[in-house]
Structure formats: C-alpha cells, structure tokens
C-alpha cells in the first residue's frame, strides 16, 4: 500500500517513519515524515494500531458489565471515563446520585485530571530531554494514586463510579492521605515551575512551536486544555455544569498563543485549580460526615453467613477491607435509592433469600438495567477534553449502539498539519502536548 505522503513526496527528500514502535509515540501511532534535512515538509499520521473494537464489544455487554471496560479507555484517568459513561446512563434512566456521592465523584475526577495532566506533561518534558522532571511528576502521581487505591481498591482499573453513585464510601483515613497527596503535588508543581516554566531551553523549545489559531482548533473539534490554550473559553464543567461543579469555585486558565508552551502552562494552572476543587469538596464533606460514620462495625461476614443458614441475620455485618465503606447502611449516602439500578448489598445477598433473588435479577441475562428506548448523549470534561458517550437503547439490557467521543482523537488528527514546517525535534513535544492516549484514541 502506498500512502498519500509517498505519492506526494519529492524525489530528493528523506522519508522517515516514526513509529508504530518508537520510544516517543505513547502507545502506538505512526507518523510518516517527509524531511528536508531536519525540516518537516509533509507529514502523515496513521492511527488505529490499538483498535480493539470497543464500541462493538459494548453492544454485546450489558449496561452494568461494560462499566469495567471503560476503565481501559483513557488509562491515565479511568475514573473520568467511568463518570462519563455512568452519567450518560443516569441521564437515560433519569436518576441522580446522592449529594455525598457527587462530592466523592468530583474529588476522584479532579484527582484523575491532575494525574492525567501530570502524565501528559511528564511525557512532554521528558521528550524535551528533561528526565528528572518526568520522574518528579511520576512521584506526585504516586501520592494521588495512594488516595485512589485506598478509596477504590485499585490503582488503574478502578470501576469505582457506579450507576447511581459510587461503589463504596471513602476510607476512614481518607483525609490524611488526601491532604498528603495535595501537599506533595503542590510541592512538585512548585519544583516543576522552577525547573521548566522559566527555563530558557524549554521556552525556546516550546514557545511559538506548533501554533494553533482558535478557528483551526474549533474546526478540528479540539476541546479541553488544548482548546483553552488557544484562548477559547470552553470547559464542560462551566459551560454545562454537571455534578456539583456549579457549587464550587474554580477558574478556567486560558492561553494566549496556542503554542506548545501555552498547552503546557494551561495544564500546569489547571492542576492547581483541580487541587483547589478537591480542597473545597473536602471541606464540604467534612461538614456532613463524622469519622465514626466511616468505621465498619458488626459481626464477621463468615459468622453472619453461618447464622443465616439457621435464622435471619439481624446484626450489622463487618465487611472485608477491600469492600470498606460498601455496607448496606451506607447505600443511602452513596447510591441512588432504587433497587432496579444498583447491585443489591452483599449483606443481603449472602444472608437472605430476597437479597439473593434481587442479586440474580440484577445480573441475569435480559433483566438488569433496561433503559427506555432512545438515544442519549452526555459529556464530561475529561483529562484532555470533552469526553462524551452517545448511547442508543432499544429497550433491552444491552446498548443497541454506543459511541465514544474521545477528545484526543480530534486533537491528534490535526498533528500532521500543525507540525509542517517545524523540525523533527518538535514533532515529539507537540505530540506530547496533545496528550495522546492510545486506549482512547483507537478505541
């Protein structure tokens, strides 16, 4: 197969194939370059190396079962993917999660956003040669992942945000871990500002490189930090507020020139705003929850199951640590009150027959969550832009059609135009500043 670029190339220019396996194409993407020495005359981008048929697979999964699959889209901020899918489904079902669950969701999503930005900038800085900065950012991410691990039980494939709420309440030590994560991230951000933001070499490398005008960005369907770096004030959290974002106080940092440096700077500032949001949510949650409320009390699960064989177990059951905060009496705080849409509490499933039946009813083929017929689109502000799900339901327990609007697809598509005329060394930071995530891009 001959590519467009091969047909158009001048005879005397050097063709260079960057990728699919190249150290800097995060995941696998292929950039074909036509070079005149170091200058790029023409470029062609080929994506799809990580295509796994996400949308088609989802048509064969029930609404509840495909939730873990959304973790694998943007694997740097899986919680936001969960949220986008779950919110779409909630809109379809017409349900809303309790306020506490909404605050927890906001905390987790903002932490994910910080993670996402940290990873993107870490890669971008490393591609400019600053390996130390990369590791500093990875260090900050580690503290944030501690919070996530404690809350969700997993670091990467969390599946924490559930239809109607969240899987479990916060861990009883969440305040200490979260405060530590915020402080450490702030420290790292300060270090990074010192190392990179005013660094002459970094400025030379990123200022006025790959400049994008607002019109160009909008035409290509850019969203998120990349769009905001061009000066367009569009953030889903402000434009179409969801969850409790309208009650929180935060700013949308904007860039001026739309070059690589602005994309870097917007992300840096956005992380600070995200940390602000998390702190506000923390205060709000402090008010309506005492630490004692988060303690798991009661009898051991094994004992409860044993008694339930003889008579109905009445006492509270203490659950295992990995389900901490998922007890039945916390359901009202963290999940929508409606049996049809949520997994029945484990205490009931294992100790009484009604609970077992409702558990089966929830998971049985053809039963479970069956939204009304019709299509729904809902989008949230993901790490690299507007992350939207479009779901068409035909009334069964599986989606008839599911479409994902991946933010980086639109951004990365424009790469070949904006790197034209620059140098080979500019391809990689530009690519890094777009935050291409293979899982989300190729679906």
């Amino acid at each position: 197969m001959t590519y467009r670029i091969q047909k158009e190339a001048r005879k005397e220019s050097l063709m260079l194939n960057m990728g699919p396996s190249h150290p800097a194409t995060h995941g696998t993407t292929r950039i074909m370059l036509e070079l005149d020495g170091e200058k790029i005359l023409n470029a062609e981008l080929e994506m799809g190396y990580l295509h796994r048929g996400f949308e088609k697979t989802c048509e064969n999964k029930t609404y509840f079962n495909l939730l873990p699959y959304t973790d694998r889209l943007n694997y740097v901020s899986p919680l936001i993917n969960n949220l986008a899918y779950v919110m779409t489904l909630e809109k379809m079902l017409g349900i809303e999660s309790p306020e506490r669950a909404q605050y927890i969701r906001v905390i987790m999503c903002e932490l994910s956003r910080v993670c996402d930005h940290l990873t993107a900038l870490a890669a971008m800085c490393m591609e400019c040669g600053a390996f130390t900065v990369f590791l500093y950012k990875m260090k900050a991410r580690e503290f944030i992942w501690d919070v996530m691990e404690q809350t969700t039980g997993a670091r990467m494939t969390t599946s924490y945000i559930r239809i109607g709420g969240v899987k479990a309440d916060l861990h009883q030590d969440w305040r200490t871990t979260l405060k530590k994560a915020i402080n450490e991230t702030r420290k790292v951000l300060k270090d990074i500002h010192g190392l990179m933001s005013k660094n002459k070499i970094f400025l030379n490398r990123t200022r006025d490189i790959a400049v994008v005008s607002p019109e160009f960005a909008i035409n290509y369907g850019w969203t998120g930090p990349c769009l905001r770096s061009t000066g367009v004030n569009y953030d889903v959290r402000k434009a179409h507020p969801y969850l409790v974002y309208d009650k929180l106080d935060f700013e949308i940092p904007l860039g001026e020139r739309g070059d690589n440096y602005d994309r870097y700077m917007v992300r840096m500032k956005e992380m600070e705003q995200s940390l602000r949001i998390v702190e506000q949510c923390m205060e709000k949650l402090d008010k309506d929850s005492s630490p004692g409320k988060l303690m798991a009390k009661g009898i051991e699960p094994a004992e409860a199951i044993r008694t339930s064989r003889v008579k109905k177990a009445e006492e509270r059951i203490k659950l295992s640590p990995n389900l901490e905060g998922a007890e039945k009496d916390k359901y009202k705080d963290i999940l929508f009150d409606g049996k049809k849409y949520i997994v029945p509490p484990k205490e009931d499933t294992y100790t009484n027959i009604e609970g077992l039946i409702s558990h089966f009813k929830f998971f049985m083929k053809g039963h479970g969550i069956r939204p009304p017929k019709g299509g729904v689109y809902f989008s949230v502000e993901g790490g690299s832009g507007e992350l939207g799900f479009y779901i068409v339901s035909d009334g069964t327990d599986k989606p008839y059609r599911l479409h994902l609007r991946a933010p980086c697809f639109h951004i990365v598509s424009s790469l070949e135009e904006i790197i034209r005329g620059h140098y080979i060394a500019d391809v990689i930071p530009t690519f890094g500043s777009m935050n291409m995530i293979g899982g989300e891009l190729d679906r």
Partner: protein
Amino acid sequence: MSETIIILIKVVCALVWFLLITLYLTWVERKESAVIQDRIGANRASILGIRIIGLFQPFADAIKMIFKEDFTPRFSRRFLHNLAPFISFFFVAITISAIPFGDVLRIGGQEIKLQVMDINVGLLFVLAMLSLGIYGIILSGWSSNNRYALIGGMRGAAQLISYEVALGLSLIGLIMVYPSLNLSTIVHYQGELLFGWLPKWGVFLQPLGLLIFFFAALAETKRIPFDLPEGENEIVGFFTEYSGLKWGLFMMTDFMEVLIVSTLLTTLFFGGWQVPWLAADGFHFPWGSEWLLPHGIVVIFQVAAFNIKVFFFCWLQILIRWTYPRFRYDQVMDLGWKLLIPLSLANIVATAILLSI
C-alpha cells in the same frame, strides 16, 4: 632500558586510572541522578551478598555488555560498522597521555614526570584527537544504513565541527596569557601568583574563555543539553544499530569525554595539579608563614588536588545533564555560531588589548 620501563608503567597507570574512573563515572551518574530524582539508584549488584551501595554495578554492567549478542545488521556496511566504535573509543582514550597528573616525582635520583607524554604541542594534540572522534560518529551513522542513525550521525558531525571552532578559539586567549602549547608548561605558569596572593589560574585570567570553553566542551561530550546526536526520544541515536560491547564502547566514550573535559578544564583553567601557594618544598602562604613538607607529601598533595578538581567537574557535568532539557538542532547551531564564536573572538581581542597595555 629503565626509561622504557618507566614509560610502560606510566602508560599502564594512566590507562587504568582513566578506565577505572570512567567505569565508576557510570556509577556516579546513576547514583547522582538517583539522588536528584528521589530514587535509590542501582544497588543490587553484589559479590557473595556484599553490596556496598552498588559499587560493583559497573562491573556487572561490563560483564553484561560483554556477553550480550554482538549483532551486526545484515543491511549495514559491515567493516565500517565494526570499525566505528573503536575509532570513537581510541581517539578519546589516547588524549589522556598528554594530561599532566602532577609535577616531577624524584625516586632514587631519577626525575619522573607525572605525565605519559610531555608533548610540546600537547594542547593541539588533545584538540586534534577529540576532533578525530567525529569519524566514529559519522561512520556509525553512515554504515548502519538506518535513517535514524544517519540523522544522528549528521547531527553529531555538524555539532562537533561547529563547536570545535568555538573550543579552539576560546583557548587562544589562554595561549596568549600563558605563552605555550605545552600542557605541563601551562600548569607551571599557573603556579605563579597575581598581586602576590591570587594564584594565576586560568579562571582568573580568562573568565570569559572558561565559560566559552565549558559550553563548547559540554557540546563536545554529546550529553544533555547537547545530546542531539543521541536524542533518544526523537531519533534514538547514531548507535541505534549497535548492541553488546560495541554499544558499550560508545557509552564508554561518552563518559570518557566527560572525564577528558574535566581534566582539560582542570589543567587549563584551574591550575591542574597546582595547590594554591604550594611550591616544591611546601606551602608559602601570602601572609608570610610557611609550612615545609617533604617531597613525597608534596607530590601526593599535587596528585590529590588534580583528582579532586577533576571529580568536581565530573560531578558538575552530571548535575547539568540531569537538570536541563535538550536543545533543538537549529538552536545548538545558533548558540555555537552566533554566540560562542563571536564571544570567543571578542575574548581574543580583549586579551590582546589587555596584554599590550
């Protein structure tokens, strides 16, 4: 006969010193970067369970590299491909022979210069050998028959040739001040005092020359922020197609260049083996007091001073390497041709005017 033996011993000692320090420079680089980046660094290599903070790591690395498959791609130009790393390695390794480690050592009525070869044009010899190292890069890039390697080789050649000019010009001021090209003579001149108390080191007489030389020399070492020929995130590097010990030789060359640059900085600008106010018979302090020392101790002081200065500059270079991002190709050229070369010319003019007054 005895002279031959002495020269042989000197060659062996200098080479062992050079290679051993180079090996341990890899360890220092790992540990220093680890400290900078909040990591622990390599500490797993052990002999019979003894680790001593990873001091065996360089040997483990060497053994690993020796036993790795030495792979030559089928599409490469085999002879040149094999030759390139040796050229690179040889021309850097040979420069150490011109560096003075200390003054003369007197044993049994014989005077031994602590320098392998006291070449009359030592400075030119060192610069020439460093320049010849370019051939290793160009040949490896060309003979690999790989576009990434080719771009790396071309970048390397362009960068080294450009900075060779600045490197040479920055030293002309120095040669005007210490009217000699002989490295040991230059060091001897630096033992004199300025205003009766300040050592006449190059750093005080040629501060601008030092800066230019340092930048140009950093570029010569091909490490971040000047690691364009390698540029592992962009073009993978001119040694993309090398493996095993041949790749190891390129890596060794890098570290040896760091060491050579440090020794040159020490020798030319920081008094070489000179300790301030230390003469052949002991210290003569500017405030009048004296501390007379036997000959052996003085020589030890000199050699130790040389080593400490060299290690300091190695440390400094590694610090720079792990702090800064990488330049872009055109920016490196701009820096070299538009800033360093005019500055070094200005330095020559200023030195000439000052000397004539």
